[in-house]
């Protein structure tokens, strides 16, 4: 497992030009993410949170400012930064096992180590027994779990998740949030989660970054000093959730 490094986002801005009109998406965003922490980024639609994540992953390279991981500039994708998308994006012609193995395609490990890693990660997400199934045979939740396994299999030091549970029903979402928390506690890597679900953001995150739209900026960073594993009915969690929600809705929280 590679050493988690500090992620440094400095004065990052981005615009889209649509038909001679310049639309600012992000405006001078600065943020530092500590190694091993779970960071939630939450905000209304259009606040640029997904855009920020894509810049972090390296799928998008056009921006102003600096993004550094450790002392390296982010100039493209890296095997050290895994990503889980909102759609599972599994390859339909591969079995689950082969899909998870996709993450090890460019790994320098030997065959045995790869096989072992695949097996471990399928177990980690609770899909043992489904190795030879095809994606269309799985439910949405199961497919997304496979996507998480794929994102983790080559042991990146950072995992980015772009609204990973957004397409799932509430019950599955709840369950997977708990599982994600367990996985994070076990793997101890940096995780950055983008979501529009405030409960999810507070439940999972050590810190919650609240973003506001047009242009995308950080409104507030709320620290969640509740120890893991967390209980959803914890009153301090509930209070913090209300605080974050109020921030998003620009209403001062009632005392």
């Amino acid at each position: 497992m590679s050493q988690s490094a500090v992620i440094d986002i400095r004065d990052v801005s981005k615009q889209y030009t649509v038909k001679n009109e310049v639309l600012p998406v992000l405006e001078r965003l600065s943020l530092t993410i500590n190694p091993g922490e779970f960071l939630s980024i939450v905000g209304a639609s259009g606040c640029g949170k997904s855009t920020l994540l894509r810049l972090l992953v390296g799928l998008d390279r056009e921006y102003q400012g600096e993004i550094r991981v450790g002392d390296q500039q982010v100039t493209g994708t890296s095997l050290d930064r895994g990503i889980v998308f909102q759609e599972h994006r599994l390859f339909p012609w591969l079995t689950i096992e082969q899909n998870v193995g996709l993450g090890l395609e460019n790994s320098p490990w030997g065959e045995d180590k790869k096989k072992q890693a695949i097996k471990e990660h399928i177990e980690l997400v609770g899909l043992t027994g489904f190795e030879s199934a095809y994606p269309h045979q799985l439910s949405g939740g199961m497919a997304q779990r496979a996507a998480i396994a794929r994102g983790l299999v080559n042991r990146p030091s950072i995992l980015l998740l772009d609204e990973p549970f957004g397409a799932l029903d509430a019950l599955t979402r709840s369950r997977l949030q708990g599982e994600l928390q367990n996985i994070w506690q076990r793997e101890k890597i940096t995780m950055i989660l983008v979501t529009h679900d405030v409960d999810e953001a507070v439940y999972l995150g050590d810190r919650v970054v609240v973003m506001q739209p047009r242009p995308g900026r950080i409104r507030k960073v709320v620290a969640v000093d509740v120890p893991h594993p967390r209980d959803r009915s914890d009153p301090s969690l509930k209070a913090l959730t209300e605080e974050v929600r109020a921030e998003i809705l620009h209403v001062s929280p009632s005392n």
Partner: protein
Amino acid sequence: MSASAASSAASLSTARFLRGLVVPLIALLAWELITHYKLANVHLLASPSAVLKNLTFQIEEGELFSQLLASLRRDLTGFLLGSFAGVLFGSALGLWRIADRLLGPSFDAAKQVAVFAWIPLISVWFGNAEPAKIVFIALAAFYPVVVNVHEGIRSVSREHVEVARAFRFSRLQTFKKLILPAALPSIFSGLHLALIYSWLGTLGAEYLLAPAPGIGNLMIEGRESLAMDKVLLGVILAGLVGFSLNSVATRAESYFLRWRVRNA
């Protein structure tokens, strides 16, 4: 499913199957009646019974099987040639935008010209014998393969391409592991169509170019001796072979593409 529900479902599907047979049976009956009683002024149609008689004759004395084999051999050669070239060309169009920009419009224009229109030119440039026929058959197979391979490669979803980028796939890896499998259904569609069109091209080539053993030859002989039963026999045989080729292609498609979900 309860026993009564199952049996009523079965009888429903039987009913549907039978309904489907109504039109073909009526057509067959009409065919026989019209030719037998000369009901309509149908120019040169032979009766089903006459065709059947000719069939047995051909099998016994006309070396039907060797004719059939000759046609199939021609067909296969042209099909393989045309499909191979088609896959290369279609892939080029799909993988490199510059190739698409340069060659796409010309191909689009050429596509508008019916394949048979090239026969006069082919007969001048390649003669009238075997090479010309194979070139024509290859041409017939070429078009559908190019269109389908091009579409298959271009419609690889952006979402999946991003996954490949996230895992730092090289261009070769992206092609082998993502583009090729994703485009495979379309490639198979193209090959399927090419199989059908190359068979038609085979018959056309045999009929229009120099006579040589083959099913088309059957039709030429029949035409020359005004033996309409022979011509019709050729047509029916051609249809049967085409139908079998189609079934083989469909079966191969569903075998290789097992992982696909049947939508709609």
